[in-house]
């Protein structure tokens, strides 16, 4: 923790820590949501291609990220 961030925090309003913390939490929530939705789609027989199209990413990307365990 640098002195600058300490000061920013003392200043209250625009504490970068609060904003960054929220981004980090949101990213983790997003990852969990993606995992659970992809799993559900797979359980319902969706192809990787179909899932990738909905997520707006390549089939390879989605398979690499979520396909490893099976």
């Amino acid at each position, binding site marked *: 923790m640098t002195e600058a961030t300490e000061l920013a925090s003392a200043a209250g309003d625009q504490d970068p820590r609060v904003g960054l*913390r*929220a981004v980090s939490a949101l990213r983790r929530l997003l990852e969990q949501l993606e995992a659970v939705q992809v799993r559900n789609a797979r359980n319902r027989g969706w192809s990787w291609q179909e899932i990738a199209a909905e997520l707006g990413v390549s089939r390879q990307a989605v398979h690499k990220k979520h396909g490893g365990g099976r």
Partner: protein
Amino acid sequence: MIGERFTRDARQAVLDAVKEAERDSADAIGPEHLLLAVLDAPVLASFDVPRGEVEAALRDARRKGGLSDADAEALRGLGIDVDQVVASVERSLGEGALAGGPPKRRRFFRNHLPFGPAAKNTLVRSLAEARDLGHGTLGKEHLVLALLSAKGLAAEVLNAKGVTYTEVRKRVVSSPR
């Protein structure tokens, strides 16, 4: 080799963490498993950290996809209600949906659960804590300090119970070795 300077207690804690992870059907050992394994550390005796409450806090966080109370608070600042998100996902996909699926069974040839990156970092960090304190051996108290020094669920659960890095370190420094 990291292991050679571990006290018997610290070794036992690592073995206990493996058991906690197995009981959890986890894919890997995480800091939260180490946390459960060091709750009986003498340095924590003067704090009030009942195992049941720690387990409940971890369970609650897992149901929220691994998000802690502090994470939920941060998201509330963005206008996102994590409880509502969890409720909505559970309504459509079943209770505990965000807690992750069944464990991936890929350990046909390996009987040991691997340490996850965060748990590995904790072990490395505990060594640094012992070194900083000038201690020649690594005990449970150093594992506790390592857990507290990292950002994450384990530290937050402890912090919520009033167990902070600063307080624990004070006790470690003043306790006889």
